């Protein structure tokens, strides 16, 4: 079965891309992912803010005590080599590139305009086949209006786009008032792909300790719906290729995403739960399903359920949402 697709201007053997997450941290796992059939791999995001925090924290806690006491000018050996900032990330990227033949996509979450540009350039120079810009940011500042946030995001993306030559994807959150408009604006900024959607880390509350607890919960298939919805709306309306991330666990999820118009589907949670070999299972199921349903290739069904082609486009409209809700209520009361 022909599962090939094209994403970020790159031909891929199939639509399964390993999404940004801890799976790419270990070289052996990366090799196993490739062996299992992953078409490309996105590295864990490089968070500029985290790097900055760590740098400043070390500056304060290691250098801060230096030259303060007669018996010790320092309390640490001087660093052996340049091992801070993005160094470790870039080094890892190089190693992953060396370890596998599939495309390796860097991922970046910057905090300052200069940081985005600088790190994007470094990731490109380190050999990434493409770069995914992770626009993950909580807009908790009440003084900052939506327009300003959107403008800043666009400016950042445009600046990065201009500064590097490798393809650029933008990973977005669904929380824009006018998401379709935003998606089009990013598309006009010549990004090569839109990745829907970022998953926010949602804190929990420990009612005994009265603390907010941070824990990562893995996605499940229910999260796919939101992605399908928006992919379907965007499919055919934007130039950029489309990726689904969040809720892709089985072959059927891949089929749905592709029908909605996705070029690739990113998997993380399912692989964390079931291991790299799950890709092989999904690909086999996918091929079997396509064969059984007499599709000649995966690309043949791409977008057939998009907003433009779906027989019942109202299903993607808000008005219909109300109906769905009511029908669900009806069911529950019976």
């Amino acid at each position: 079965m022909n599962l090939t697709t094209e994403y970020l201007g790159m031909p891929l053997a199939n639509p399964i891309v390993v999404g940004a997450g801890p799976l790419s941290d270990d070289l052996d796992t990366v090799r196993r992912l490739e062996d299992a059939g992953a078409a490309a791999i996105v590295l864990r995001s490089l968070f500029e803010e985290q790097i900055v925090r760590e740098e400043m924290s070390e500056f304060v806690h290691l250098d801060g005590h230096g030259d303060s006491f007669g018996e010790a000018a320092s309390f640490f050996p001087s660093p052996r080599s340049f091992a801070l900032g993005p160094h470790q990330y870039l080094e890892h990227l190089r190693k992953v590139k060396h370890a596998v033949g599939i495309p390796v996509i860097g991922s970046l979450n910057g905090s300052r305009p200069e940081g985005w540009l600088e790190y994007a350039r470094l990731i490109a120079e380190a050999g990434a086949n493409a770069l995914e810009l992770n626009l993950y940011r909580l807009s908790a500042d009440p003084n900052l209006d939506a327009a300003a946030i959107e403008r800043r995001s666009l400016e950042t993306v445009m600046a990065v786009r201009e500064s590097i030559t490798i393809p650029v994807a933008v990973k977005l959150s669904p929380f824009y008032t006018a998401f379709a408009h935003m998606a089009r604006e990013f598309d006009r900024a010549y990004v090569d792909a839109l990745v829907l959607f970022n998953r926010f880390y949602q804190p929990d509350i420990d009612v005994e300790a009265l603390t907010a607890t941070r824990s990562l919960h893995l996605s499940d298939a229910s999260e796919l719906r939101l992605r399908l919805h928006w992919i379907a709306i965007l499919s055919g309306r934007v130039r950029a290729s489309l990726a689904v991330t969040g809720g892709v666990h089985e072959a059927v999820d891949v089929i749905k995403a592709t029908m909605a118009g996705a070029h690739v589907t990113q998997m993380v949670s399912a692989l964390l739960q079931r291991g790299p070999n799950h890709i092989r299972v999904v690909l086999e199921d996918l091929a079997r399903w396509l064969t059984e349903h007499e599709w000649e290739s995966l690309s043949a069904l791409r977008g057939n359920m998009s907003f433009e082609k779906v027989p019942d486009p109202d299903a993607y409209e808000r008005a219909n949402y109300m109906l769905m809700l009511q029908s669900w209520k009806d069911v529950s009361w019976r």
Partner: protein
Amino acid sequence: MIEGRTITVDGNEAAASVAHRLSEVIAIYPITPSSPMGELADEWSAHGRPNIWGAVPEVVEMQSEGGAAGAVHGALQAGALATTFTASQGLLLMLPNMFKIAGELTPFTMHVAARTIATHALSIFGDHSDVMACRSTGFAMLSSASVQEAHDFAAIAHAATLESRVPFLHFFDGFRTSHEVSKIEMLDDDDLRALVSGDRIAEHRRRALTPDHPVIRGTAQNPDTFFQAREAANLHYHACIAIVRRTMAAFASRTGRRYDLFEYVGHPEAERVLVIMGSGAETAHETIERLSRRGERVGLVKVRLYRPFDLESFVRILPKTVRAIAVMDRTKEPGAVGEPLYLDVRAALDEARDQRCSELAVAPVVVGGRYGLSSKEFTPSMVAAVLENLTQEHPRNHFTVGIVDDVTHTSLRYDTAFDEEDDDVTTAVFYGLGSDGTVGANKNSIKIIGEETQRHVQGYFVYDSKKAGATTVSHLRTSPRPIRSAYLIPKPRFVACHQFEFLDRLDVLERAADGAVFLLNAPYPPDEVWDRLPLEVQRQIIDKHIRVYAIDASTVAKRVGMGSRINTIMQTCFFAISGVLPKAEAIAQIKHAIEKTYSKRGVEVVRRNFEAVDATVAELHEIPVPPTVTAERGRPPLVSSEAPDFVQRMTAVLMAGKGDLLPVSAFPVDGTWPLGTARWEKRNLAVEIPVWDPAVCIQCNQCALVCPHAAIRAKVYDPAALGGAPPTFKAVPYKGLEFKGRQYTIQVAPEDCTGCTLCVEVCPAKDRTNPRHKAIDMHPQAPLRQTERDNYAFFVDLPETTRLELAKIDHRTSQLLEPLFEYSGACAGCGETPYLKLLTQLFGDRALIANATGCSSIYGGNLPTTPYSTNREGLGPAWSNSLFEDNAEFGLGLRLAVDHHTHLARTLVASLRASIGDGLADRVLDADVSSEEGIHSQREHVRALMHALTHVDLPEARRLEAVAEYLVPKSVWLVGGDGWAYDIGYGGLDHVLASGRNVNILVLDTEVYSNTGGQQSKATPAGAVAKFASAGKTTPKKDLGLLANMYGHVYVARIAFGAKMPQTVQALLEAEAYPGTSLVIAYSHCIAHGYDMAQGASQQKLAVESGVWPLYRFDPRRSAKGEPPMQLDYGPPKPLAAEYMRNESRFRVVERADPDRFKAFLKTAQDAAQRRYGLYEQLAGIRVPLEETTGARGKDDAPAARERQS
């Protein structure tokens, strides 16, 4: 002549640079002020820097200086070129090997940053008492007087030792030279190659011990042979003198820098001559030149090669006109006819006369004097005074200079009028806080000026003895000529004060020259600055015509995200005002230096520092100076008027930085000082202090337990005691049943708190409606200072709870007891001091503490103020520090004496039974002192006994009076860090463990040599980065507890107060109660772990939960009850090691540099934790047969006691 490349380095680096390049094996052990030499050597080797023969020297850190000397001895015998670095007591530990190395005629050079030997007190500063103790070893002794010479003479020594086979001790003055930053001409590898003979190295190799050409060396000899054999080496010593001279000549022809065994400076027909060696010679050189220019017939002989002492050269170099000679020794030899150099000079002159090789016109008068002990200043005025003394018909001999000796009247008078600097010398003095980066910035500035201008530069840095809130004073000179001023800047033309608060406690403008520039970091707008200055400062500014510049550096630093680091900002101000370099060039150079210094810390660090530089100039303002003083506020007194007389007379003077003014008569003759002085030093370090909310508080007292400075305390007291309480004093009913009806208060000492926030972090009590608000939150100190000061004063006067009143002592109730260790100079958030404070709460009124040298001896016993204190009855810990290496033995000695006194007292009570009455005698002798009640009763009995004895007119009664207090049991504690217990003192510790005697050993385990700057110890865990383990230590932490367990009769506990407070208290109580040897190993977080100390307690928790740090108690007494002696106080390890390790930079930097290596370390840590738990769990299941557990010997069955009883 070859014009060398110049570098700006300190004396340690200057010497180490040569030593590393000329060595193959380097064995070292850290000791101030020589530690940087070993650290640099290690760093260079770790980075693969080769010696001049292309091989990377092998650097090994040993367990002691004795070990380092042994290791180099072995390396030398096996034909390697070896070196070591040391000072002071460390050098003394090398003495036995030095005799051997010299006796075997082994080419070897050691480099010594000469430091005071501890006598009545320890001192880390410089003098020649250590090297003078090596005179009889057979080492040649070569003295450097400056940073350039430390570099040059290092090379000369390494070359000459190979030629002569006489080993060399190359020394320079600790701190004054070792830590002085100066621009020097660097010897390149070719220079060194040209000096060192390949043939001689080959000969050294041929003498190596090898089974291919076997010899035997180090035999034992008898009366028939030893003496002659000892004389057989004489020719080598005779030859050594010529070899050094030849080497110096070769050196001169290559570098242009000319040296000789003795060098003369001054008037060619001098009548008065000074003889001196070390950095004092530089000051003397400068002074003599100035005096000679004035036509005074004075001269100076600098001693370079002190051993072998070349009589002929010495006599020949003296001007024939000399009539009087003053020989200056930087050491003291009590009881000797004179100090060593003085005696040598006198003997040399006498012998020269006998041998008729002297051409002097008259036999000169020779006097000797002492100067500069422990880095005491030695200034041109003092040199002038010494020369003035020589104008007398009978010059004072055995004089001192630099102090006022009003007891034995040895001191020469001097005034400071001579302490002038030439106009073209730039002088600047900077007052900073240790944590604000002032010294680092000034080191950078000196390098910039040194490298970017033709001027010579000098930087010297003075530190106080505190770790938290330390004051630093930087002295910077630049000059068109080489700088020989080996003394502090007497009249700076630029003064910077980097902390506004200093103006209230330090006289920063005292020395400022007329017309000086004053740069002040002031947290006020420019138009408010003048009015904020204390009256005294305003007056000085007006009187001395000082120009004032101010910047609110702290605000700028905060704005650019630099926290409290104002170094870059103040450095930029210095360059902007001083005009040492054109402003634009200076800024470019500062940025270059920032990049060089911080690029390894990351781009953001560099960026923010750049931003700080750019933001500075616009914020710097000149402050107009009105013609008259406007301030109404004067500088507040340094100590309260309520302080005892001794504190007013002595301590306050030391605190003001004017200790130099105190005369000899002011001092105790034997180094004995009163307790409780820290309470009078109000340092006001905290920007924010904890504020208590009684409504939220659950009265758990955890805040008090973790406070490293005893600055937050809890009390319960009778409500009646609240009469007269200040209006803002907080009190609530006590919640516990044991003191029903009483009031309870948590009170902060606002001026003693360091603001570390450990207490807030551990506080478990949250306001349920607003959990961000806890029972204690941090609030700005300044607005609270006055009210909380009053509240604290009231709190302190409230009655104390005694142990007798506590039904049970645990982690909560223990904090109701008065700490007798308070406000130490330890780091903010220190992980060691909470244990010591707790120890004094539990046993302080009857404790003797033997404290190994290290952090705990410095914050525990470094003047001017010390933290151990007494209770209202005047009882408190008696504390002493012997050495680093012998603390266990020292503490055992305390125990032996106590046991002796107790036994004697009991014997005398028995023998005086008839006089004091059977009842009292029985009560005293039969008292059960195993409980607090028993101890209390025994105190009463002893009081009655003392009273009864006043009526007994027998010699035994007087003897008993002297020892009767020992009838109340004493608690002997041996305290120290892991450097002591795991490494240098382990032999002694092991012996004391084996002894079974009733001592309690508390190891404050920071897993690294904290005091000397983070060198690895055997307590350092695998995977942690430390000096000498810069890629992460590869071998595991030594399990000291397990080793002690194996004795079977030792009480052993591992504790971590942040993880389990009840276990900590319980272990200390059990250890003390155990009638044999106890070992308690206490997890102590430390700044050398590289994270925010406020998280210390939570890190301890992670350490325990992950199994990295086990908690257990091994109590041999349990065997008697049929129980296993080992009890685990922690559960199976959870998978938290990664979290624990990633929180600390010491582990995290490995991950960033080499993630795979980190992963391996992590696995090692996890596996080790599991394995250890498994092993301990099995041990915890072992019941030991009763008869095997009787090894513990209490005071009553100590061998001496048993012998007497039998």
